[in-house]
């Protein structure tokens, strides 16, 4: 379990109830791969099958370790797979204290290999479990239980960390503090992280790559920004959630204004929240409906964020009055949803220089 970890190859199919599962994707070491889709799409089943808790047919391997290969009659039971698993409904051991639950995982985690594993102290501190160590799980709130469950999974020193909506019971600000840490932890340890969620904000915060799932089918993982851009509106995302992800660098906090100033390929952006340390990376989700386009630099306007770029493509949304316009800035892209009428009146077409107007409030607090 060093920086050069092993990739998880998933090739599973089967039926659970009425749902037909067909999952084929790869999750790379050091990266967080989000299995992203609506509820009932089979996300949990795929994750359980990777853990060995649910049996599908096919092949499953973590680097050189084959966990399942039906052709060779191989099926490694869950307790022999180097995994950490956080259930959506945390399955804590009620007969042990919070600390007892964590030590249970630690005691069975085996000898550390390569890089030093995440320490008990760090996990307890980052997940703010210190004051709860002596308590029994039954007295904890839903969010506290989920944090204990996540901590326990991490302390199992997994080569593959499998998380099923592990923070769904937490408040958004608490989640925002944990997700970047989780992402960085995966990067540092070189382990595979599979993160199942139906929450787009969460996925944007945590995922390097996204494997969209719909009706039990996962057909591969792609880089987060690319995958989000390709997601069909209305199917995985509700119409108004379609959008794109921008990666920017924090230039400075502006505490007096409660804003932070970001640098996006030489252009300036201001987003809410002054607490971001300068020099860090900020990931911002911009919903397509929150972006307006202009062909000239606007003046005397309340919108503070104006980005200059050029149109990459204009895509009509069938059966709606809208079109989606992809705009490129350096190596990043942004999608705007405007009416077809506006698109034709402005004469938008590939290569045309435009100004994208982003309402400050449209940024997610990532």
């Amino acid at each position, binding site marked *: 379990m060093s920086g050069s970890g092993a990739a998880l190859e998933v090739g599973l199919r089967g039926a659970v109830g009425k749902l037909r599962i067909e999952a084929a994707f790869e999750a790379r070491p050091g990266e967080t791969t989000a299995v992203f889709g609506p509820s009932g799409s089979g996300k949990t089943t795929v994750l359980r099958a990777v853990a060995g808790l649910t049996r599908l047919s096919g092949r499953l391997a973590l680097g050189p370790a084959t966990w399942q290969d039906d052709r060779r009659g191989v099926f490694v039971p869950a307790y022999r797979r180097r995994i950490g*698993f956080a259930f959506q409904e945390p399955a804590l051991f009620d007969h042990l204290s919070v600390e007892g639950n964590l030590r249970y995982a630690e005691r069975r985690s085996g000898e550390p290999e390569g890089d030093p594993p995440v320490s008990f102290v760090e996990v307890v501190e980052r997940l703010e479990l210190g004051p709860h160590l002596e308590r029994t799980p039954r007295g904890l709130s839903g969010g506290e239980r989920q944090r204990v469950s996540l901590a326990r999974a991490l302390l199992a020193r997994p080569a593959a960390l499998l998380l099923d909506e592990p923070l769904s019971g937490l408040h958004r600000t608490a989640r925002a503090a944990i997700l970047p840490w989780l992402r960085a932890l995966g990067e540092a340890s070189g382990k595979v992280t599979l993160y199942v969620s139906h929450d787009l904000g969460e996925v944007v915060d945590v995922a390097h790559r996204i494997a969209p799932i719909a009706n039990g089918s996962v057909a591969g993982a792609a880089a987060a920004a690319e995958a989000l851009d390709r997601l069909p509106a209305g199917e995985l995302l509700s119409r108004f959630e379609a959008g794109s992800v921008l990666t920017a660098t924090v230039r400075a906090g502006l505490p007096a204004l409660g804003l932070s100033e970001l640098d996006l390929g030489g252009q300036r952006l201001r987003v809410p929240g002054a607490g971001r340390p300068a020099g860090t990376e900020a990931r911002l989700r911009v919903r397509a409906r929150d972006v307006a386009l202009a062909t000239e630099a606007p003046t005397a306007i309340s919108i503070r964020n104006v980005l200059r770029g050029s149109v990459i493509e204009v895509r009509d949304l069938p059966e709606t009055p809208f079109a989606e316009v992809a705009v490129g800035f350096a190596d990043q892209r942004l999608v705007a949803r405007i009416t077809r009428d506006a698109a034709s009146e402005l004469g938008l077409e590939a290569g045309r220089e435009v100004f994208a107007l982003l309402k400050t409030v449209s940024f997610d607090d990532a």
Partner: protein
Amino acid sequence: MNAETIWPPIRLTLELAGVTTVFLLLLGTPIAWWLARTRFRFKEAVAALVALPLVLPPTVLGFYLLIALGPDGPGGFVAGLFGGRSLAFSFPGLVIGSIIYSLPFTVQPIRSAFEAVGDRPLEAAATLRASPWDAFWSVAVPLARPGLIAGAVLGFAHTVGEFGVILMIGGNIPGATRVLSIAIYDHVELMEWGTAHLLSGSLLAFSFVVVALTLSLQKKMGGRDR
């Protein structure tokens, strides 16, 4: 009323119930675990077999046990290995009869407790690299502890109170097979009301404590789910 007629049956009864309870746990716990976890199609038939002594008249059970433990049954064969003739009318015979007779009282609460534990904690243990054997001892048994205690208490108490089966397979040999319930019967037959009162009153109090204890344990166990 003297100590020599009162204490031997009490001591024998406690010995019998104690030994029986140990075997009930050793035998009943795996049976309860299997009944709680298996997907075997005919598991309820096995459960019915275990529960049979609940409805069977003790004399019927005692009759078959007498044949089985006697010189011509398997019990006689086992006794032969140790130089005896028969397991009937002996302490080991009483233990075997008591185990069968009290088994449902031990298996049922333990099975319910294992069922209440459910799959999730065991799955969680598996994801934390606990083998099934490890998970059984480190998760299932501690979570089912109230059920295990209830099973032990009920098995013990039920053995203390048995009469019919013992009369059939143990007879009434003072110091060897004459247990409390049979002693009470004898005292009544001999019109020794005082002794019968004392022993019966003690059993009444004992039974009340046992039932109260079991109910409170089961209530505690029910609260575990919430």
